[in-house]
């Protein structure tokens, strides 16, 4: 498991170094391209503010009122039996439906339970390794006017369930369940 941490640590710096060298070799105006691309980053960060404010306020209300605790108490035995921490259930429900809402929930879980806990790491991996099935289906099929999705929704949702199980196993295996 030590090895996985070492690879995780060196991967990004090496990749950045490689991209910069490759760009220089191909005579790309690296710094200017970097600045141009970076401007897009500001736009994205600012444009997700309303999504996150909406979702995080709603979750805060839900939790501060005690409703979340009540829900947890109710589903905890079932979830524990399956090895899933009850705290991540709202994230699991929202993940296929809305990417930005899920981002809000992931942030909330990391803020409350800490990034270096089982729940924090699981939320991190889940956010990174799954996607918004409903959004993808709606946008892509909508764009070309497909009305009959066939098995696409079933396949997408089953793949989501499978992806969630895989994420739990991988995180438990690499970091343990503390």
């Amino acid at each position: 498991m030590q090895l996985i941490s070492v690879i995780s640590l060196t991967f990004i710096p090496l990749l950045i170094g490689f991209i910069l060298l490759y760009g220089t070799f191909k005579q790309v105006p690296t710094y200017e391209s970097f600045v141009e691309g970076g401007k897009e980053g500001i736009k994205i960060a600012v444009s997700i503010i309303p999504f996150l404010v909406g979702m995080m306020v709603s979750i805060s209300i839900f939790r501060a009122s005690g409703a979340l605790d009540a829900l947890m108490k109710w589903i905890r035995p079932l979830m524990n039996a399956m090895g899933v921490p009850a705290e991540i259930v709202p994230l699991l429900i929202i993940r296929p439906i809305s990417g930005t809402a899920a981002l809000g929930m992931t942030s909330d879980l990391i803020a409350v339970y800490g990034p270096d806990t089982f729940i924090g790491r699981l939320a991190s991996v889940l956010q990174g390794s799954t996607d918004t099935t409903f959004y993808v289906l709606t946008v892509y099929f909508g764009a070309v006017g497909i009305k009959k999705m066939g098995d696409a929704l079933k396949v997408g949702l089953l793949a989501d369930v499978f992806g969630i199980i895989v994420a739990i196993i991988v995180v438990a295996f690499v970091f343990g369940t503390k």
Partner: protein
Amino acid sequence: MVNYIWVFMTIIGVVFALINGTMAEVNKAIFDGAKEAVTLCIGLISVLVFWLGIMRIAEESGLLKSLTKLFRPLVKRLFPEVPPNHPAMGYILSNMISNMFGLGNAATPLGIKAMEELQKLNGGINSASRSMVTFLAINTASITIIPTTVIAIRMTYHSASPTEIVVPTIIATIISAAGAIVIDRYFYYRRSRKG
């Protein structure tokens, strides 16, 4: 759907607060939650600017194009109904590569182009073709190499090692993408057996 969930959580929270007498906490939560969200987005700016800047270099140097070539033989096998030199193949590949590097904004238009090309192959009928279902299965499994946003969030909340989740995320994403392909194939063979 997200509209209902959003309203549901808020309303249940307020009703619960009425019954439980936790109104003071809820009042505080409204403003704390909003503040937290904005603080978080400002924290995200640093990583997003840096990563999208680096990715622009990868794009302009032709690195993404080379990767596309590298993956072509593999992807050809996933879409047996698409002729290898059809423009759909190029868009499918570019969409997957953009997704891998966390360039969601670049990936979506490419994905839509891919769907348009697949629709041409589909003969203009309004039900999904086999290739479309496969394409979307892979897309929803979302193969990620660098989960940029997640790293930024972990940094914001003082993780001892924000990037420690990179390799686990790659492992999880590869297994779940493989699973998505198997599930897709299973449904395809079930369909074709029924005729």
